[in-house]
């Protein structure tokens, strides 16, 4: 690499890499903020597009149920297995249920659900809107007297902000159930014992913590998916590139936001 001369990255070269990257990041954040502003403005302009929102809840939420259940069940089971075996040398395997419940509800439920749904739904949004963009359907919406943000972005934003927390609740329940079943066999306790242990451990702030995070994740998934779709150029090849970009951007945003939101909620709820 030219930038690495003698194994050292010169300050000037670092600037050439970092500054454009920062400029791009700033532009991305700015464009997404503008898109959010337009969507919020359209939300308060009657009539409210309930029908379009329900369609998106069905496609993005209900159709993601099976993948959510499958992922949550196996995550809960694997987590229980790891904790049961890992805690045994310390004589603490009885606490497996508590740790599984906390891990699922506060962290893995919302994050894994968001990553999977983000890959599935976010990429779908980009592919659909991107295809509409390159075939002039987005222009046609405007030419026919409507607003693409109102017709395409707003329903998806509202739908995913509502649907992802609901999917996360399902993931929490299924993950805890899967963890409880495995704990029963690995630690040799009754299901009632694990269930009681889990309900005693999980408090309202833990649930709020996880569900609030998923509200933000749902918003990011829809926003990034729509934004990439609307800026798609270059025919079908461009749609492919934009879709891949959405999966990457969504995953990175979810993981970064998870860290920041966890810090925030821990400061609020402890």
């Amino acid at each position, binding site marked *: 690499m030219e930038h690495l001369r003698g194994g050292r990255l010169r300050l000037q070269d670092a600037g050439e890499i970092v500054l454009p990257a920062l400029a791009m990041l700033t532009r991305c954040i700015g464009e997404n903020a503008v898109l959010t502003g337009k969507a919020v403005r359209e939300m308060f302009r009657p009539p409210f597009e309930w029908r379009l929102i329900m369609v998106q809840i069905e496609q993005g939420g209900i159709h993601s149920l099976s993948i959510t259940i499958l992922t949550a069940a196996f995550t809960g089971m694997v987590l229980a297995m790891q904790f049961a075996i890992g805690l045994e040398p310390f004589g603490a395997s009885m606490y497996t249920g508590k740790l599984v419940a906390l891990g699922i509800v506060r962290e893995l439920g919302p994050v894994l659900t968001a990553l999977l749904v983000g890959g599935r739904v976010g990429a779908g949004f980009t592919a659909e809107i991107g295809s*509409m963009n390159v*075939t002039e*359907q987005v*222009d046609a919406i*405007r*030419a*026919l007297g*409507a607003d693409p943000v109102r017709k395409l972005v707003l329903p998806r934003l509202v739908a995913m902000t509502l649907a992802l927390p609901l999917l996360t609740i399902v993931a929490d329940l299924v993950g805890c159930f899967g963890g409880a079943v495995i704990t029963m066999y690995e630690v040799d306790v009754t299901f009632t014992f694990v269930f009681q242990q889990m309900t005693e451990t999980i408090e309202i702030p833990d649930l709020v913590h996880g569900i609030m995070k998923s509200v933000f994740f749902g918003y990011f998934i829809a926003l990034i998916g729509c934004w990439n779709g609307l800026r798609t150029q270059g025919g079908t090849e461009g749609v492919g590139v934009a879709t891949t970009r959405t999966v990457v951007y969504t995953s990175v945003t979810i993981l970064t936001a998870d860290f920041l939101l966890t810090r925030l909620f821990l400061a609020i709820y402890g």
Partner: protein
Amino acid sequence: MAETIIQFQGVKKAFGDKIVYEDLSLDVHKGETLTIIGGSGVGKSVCLKLLIGLLQADGGTIRAFGQEVQTSNEAGMIMLRKRISMLFQGAALFDSMSVADNIKYPLVEHKWGTTGEMDKRVAEVLDLVDMPGIETLRPAELSGGMKKRVGLARAIAIQPEVILYDEPTTGLDPINVRRINGLILSLQDRLGITSLVVTHDMDTVFTITNRLALVHEKRIAFVGTPDEAKSHELRFLREFVQGGRGTLDEDL
């Protein structure tokens, strides 16, 4: 002299470093069919998109029905788009909707009437483009020519005063080309609609045009009748009108 309803004055447009228009000046008269011709990629479609605000001009002024497009607010643009419809190159029908819902789309947006009245209007315009009874079909089930005609039905549904046609006959077989040309002519004759047509197809130009405009070297290099174009001093125009031999010569 016919009333000027659309006016481009000194319009400039660039995409990044690529300058498309340095000085686009053109008047469109009420009730005429004006065809815009020019080589590929010179910005013919850009001209249509600038007119209805799908693209923003970098300079100059565009007026339609006395309204300045660049400074119009959203409500003003919605009203303008009710008066000026567009048929897109690939028809741009919404894949997720039936033919009826596609045609109803502008009617719903402009609160045209009751559901019954809109259904009646859908049947009427489908009849007008000679495609009755296909309301329930999806765009994926239509051929290229059928899509263009449904696109045209959608464009005329709201009873616009001006229709913009972006390459209306490109990629169609000769029968469909004649059919589309016939529709453009009949809309002008029967409904008095003003048409602004972007095309490469010289047969279409000579069939439907009252006046033609040539986009050349980032401006409108000629405006006049097809007969005037044939004998014009600009060699590029003469050869373009006679079948594109000028372009071929230059390439060679």
